[in-house]
């Protein structure tokens, strides 16, 4: 028997977890055969250090993206056009922040603390999704984000929910359930705008035009550019390549976009290849993508400023929790037991 919780684990530097360490090859073979059978890896299990590091990086970026994704939409809460839209938007923003909390916890089980991850986000060291480096300029942007970007996220997250790391997969199942509401509400907003006055329709078209580039880049660099993909797929950290996810998104949503009487900018030369059954498009500029996610997008500085302000403004809550700790009867009994 061991005195460990299901979420403890996460002690980096487990013996023999790096290539060249004694026993590494045997452990790796056992690990890979488990993973290929569809077994979930749990926090206390042996795992290659590279697996641990890749997952920490991935979950950390994902958590940051949830937090930063709440910012452009959160800013629109005071200006929502009706009470119903306002309530739904508040609920969505609350969900996204909750997703970040679940994900930071999942990453912590691999040995990196939440404080460290939040610090790296605020200082600009850690990345977050390219799409949240842009401004949400109009209400139609809010609708576009909630429909098409959440749709892109769902393609990614339902795939990742089948991944090999238990705590991440479980968090994603919960997250996907909530995303379904974001997507449907976003679609509902887009239908309203697309079928409303000409002004509303034009506003939505303008939003789609401006967001199309970030959306096309959302699933990350094309398979020709993207490194590590083979290893990540073998370890079931990732189940589909970036291009496969992008194709899935386009197949599902291009028809819906056209159905609303909308178009995407001509410069992308989007067309469906009937023979191959795939969407053809002009390859995004991946250097520009990297430049943006490194913190050089139009809204990058604003995002980090807002996040930093929120963190500092929330300090009193953390202090209050700390000073109230153990003052209740329940708290004392546990403190005594511990």
């Amino acid at each position: 028997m061991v005195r460990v919780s299901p979420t403890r684990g996460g002690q980096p530097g487990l013996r023999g977890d790096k290539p060249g360490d004694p026993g590494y090859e045997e452990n790796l073979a056992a690990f890979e055969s488990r993973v290929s059978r569809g077994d979930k890896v749990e926090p206390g299990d042996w795992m290659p250090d590279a697996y641990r590091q890749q997952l920490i990086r991935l979950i950390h970026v994902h958590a940051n993206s949830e937090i930063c994704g709440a910012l452009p939409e959160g800013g629109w809460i005071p200006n929502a056009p009706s009470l119903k839209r306002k309530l739904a938007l508040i609920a969505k923003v609350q969900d996204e922040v909750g997703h970040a909390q679940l994900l930071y916890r999942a990453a912590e089980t691999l040995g990196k603390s939440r404080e460290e991850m939040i610090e790296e986000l605020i200082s600009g060291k850690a990345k977050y999704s390219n799409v949240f480096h842009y401004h949400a300029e109009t209400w139609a942007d809010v609708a576009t984000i909630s429909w098409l970007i959440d749709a892109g996220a769902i393609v990614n997250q339902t795939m990742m929910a089948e991944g090999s790391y238990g705590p991440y997969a479980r968090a994603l199942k919960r997250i996907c359930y909530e995303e379904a509401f974001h997507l449907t509400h976003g679609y509902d907003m887009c239908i309203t705008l697309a079928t409303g006055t000409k002004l509303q329709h034009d506003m939505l078209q303008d939003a789609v035009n401006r967001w199309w580039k970030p959306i096309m880049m959302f699933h990350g660099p094309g398979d020709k550019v993207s490194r590590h993909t083979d290893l990540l797929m073998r370890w079931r950290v990732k189940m589909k390549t970036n291009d496969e996810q992008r194709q899935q998104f386009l197949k599902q949503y291009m028809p819906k976009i056209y159905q609303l009487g909308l178009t995407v900018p001509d410069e992308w030369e989007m067309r469906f290849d009937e023979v191959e059954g795939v969407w053809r498009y002009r390859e995004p500029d991946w250097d520009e993508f990297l430049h943006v996610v490194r913190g050089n997008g139009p809204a990058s500085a604003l995002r980090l400023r807002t996040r930093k302000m929120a963190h500092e403004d929330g300090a009193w809550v953390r202090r209050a929790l700390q000073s109230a700790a153990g003052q209740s009867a329940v708290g004392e009994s546990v403190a005594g037991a511990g």
Partner: protein
Amino acid sequence: MSDTQWQIFEVFHQQVRGEPHVYVGSVHAPDPEAALILAKEQYGRRQASVSLWVVPEDAITATSYEDVDMFDHGTDKSYRESFGYETTKRIKSIVADRTESRGEA
């Protein structure tokens, strides 16, 4: 910025009265009361819930996945399963025998 690296509490969630509490995840909190508040936000905000438990993570003693022997049934244990018995087949043959002997009489 290590001001919230509090103790971990494991969270168990019950959806309907009478059903088991199910392990759903964990939160950091300075005490059990705060853990319940945070657990409610994280795990009881969206779906049906009637009860939550929070347990300090170091209170849990667990088996290890490595101890496969512990759950391995070394011998045939079908005698304690319903599939280990052939009652239907046996009763059918008894009934068949009876019909046969009545036919002969």
